[in-house]
């Protein structure tokens, strides 16, 4: 359920945690593949909103090394298909967690759904 396209948009929002709070580090992730419709227009349109370095780092954390380390200038069919798979088809199926690289706050993933709530004293 939570896919890397969504992970790429989540930052730690704990009180006072404003720098180096992205990307959240994925741990204890069990990977599942879920087929999704391939839509090159969507991928081209969405790519400007992706933080490339964070995506590459996250994809390596889940054991996928297919993406180039530098943001590609040209999007050929092969690369679009790789992006489709990494961003939209690989999902963290069940339990796991995401940890803030700055403050260490742990956001649990339960039944594939990240819990981003903070306790009252942690809210900025």
């Amino acid at each position, binding site marked *: *359920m*939570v*896919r890397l*396209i*969504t992970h*790429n*948009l*989540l*930052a*730690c*929002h704990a009180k006072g945690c404003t720098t180096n*709070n*992205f990307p959240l580090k994925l741990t204890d992730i069990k990977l599942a593949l879920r087929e*999704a*419709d*391939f*839509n090159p*227009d*969507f991928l081209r*349109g*969405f790519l400007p*909103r992706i*933080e490339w370095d964070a995506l590459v780092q996250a994809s390596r954390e889940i054991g996928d090394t297919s993406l180039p380390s530098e943001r590609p200038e040209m999007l050929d069919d092969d690369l679009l298909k790789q992006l489709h798979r990494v961003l*939209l088809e690989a999902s963290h199926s069940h339990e796991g967690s995401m940890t803030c690289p700055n403050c260490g706050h742990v*956001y649990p993933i*339960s*039944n*594939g*759904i*990240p*819990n*981003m*709530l*903070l306790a*009252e004293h942690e809210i900025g």
Partner: protein
Amino acid sequence: MIPTPDLSHLTKEDYKRVYEPAEDTFLLLDALEADADAIRALAPRVCLEIGSGTGIVSSFLGQIVGASDALFLCTDINPLSTACTARTGSQNKIPIEPLVASLARPLTSRLRHAVDVLVFNPPYVPTYEVEVDAAQRNGGISGSWAGGTDGMQVTDAFLRQVDGLLSPLGRFYLVAVKQNNVPKIKNLMSEVFALQSEIVLQRRAGSEHLFVLRFAR
């Protein structure tokens, strides 16, 4: 005619703890349907619904936009709601991404000026202030309706984030009731954030006079 999303997978047990679609929900669906051509013309890439409950609204939006044409993000403070949202997405073949979160908090820094369609059917019922604080903290079903003074306590907190989230051509749909003071909301958004608004639809349902407002730059 866009079909109402299938909710046959949800039961009475679910509706004890997750807001069951009611007149306000259906007015919002009707407003989105009335705007369907304009929404499609935006070619939205990021849709975000706050307080998604059963997930019926984002599933409907997914049918308008196209399941693979956008990312459909949903937040809710109630984990049971996010689970229902995920199930409703699967049932209607819309790949919705639910997050247990308050408003858009974990997304605001990365989705700065990036949300094309933003939707919020807030807890708009006027209640005592203490009631809304407790309701939001518990993440239970009362959090889906208890709105505090003027029913605006949760909505007010979100209105301040809308400008930061909306993409240049993005639009924000908000459900309100008469007691929320619709002219005051419209003025605030226009004067403070330069977001103009229109009433897409309004309807009387029992004792409630419901509105769907649309905001854009």
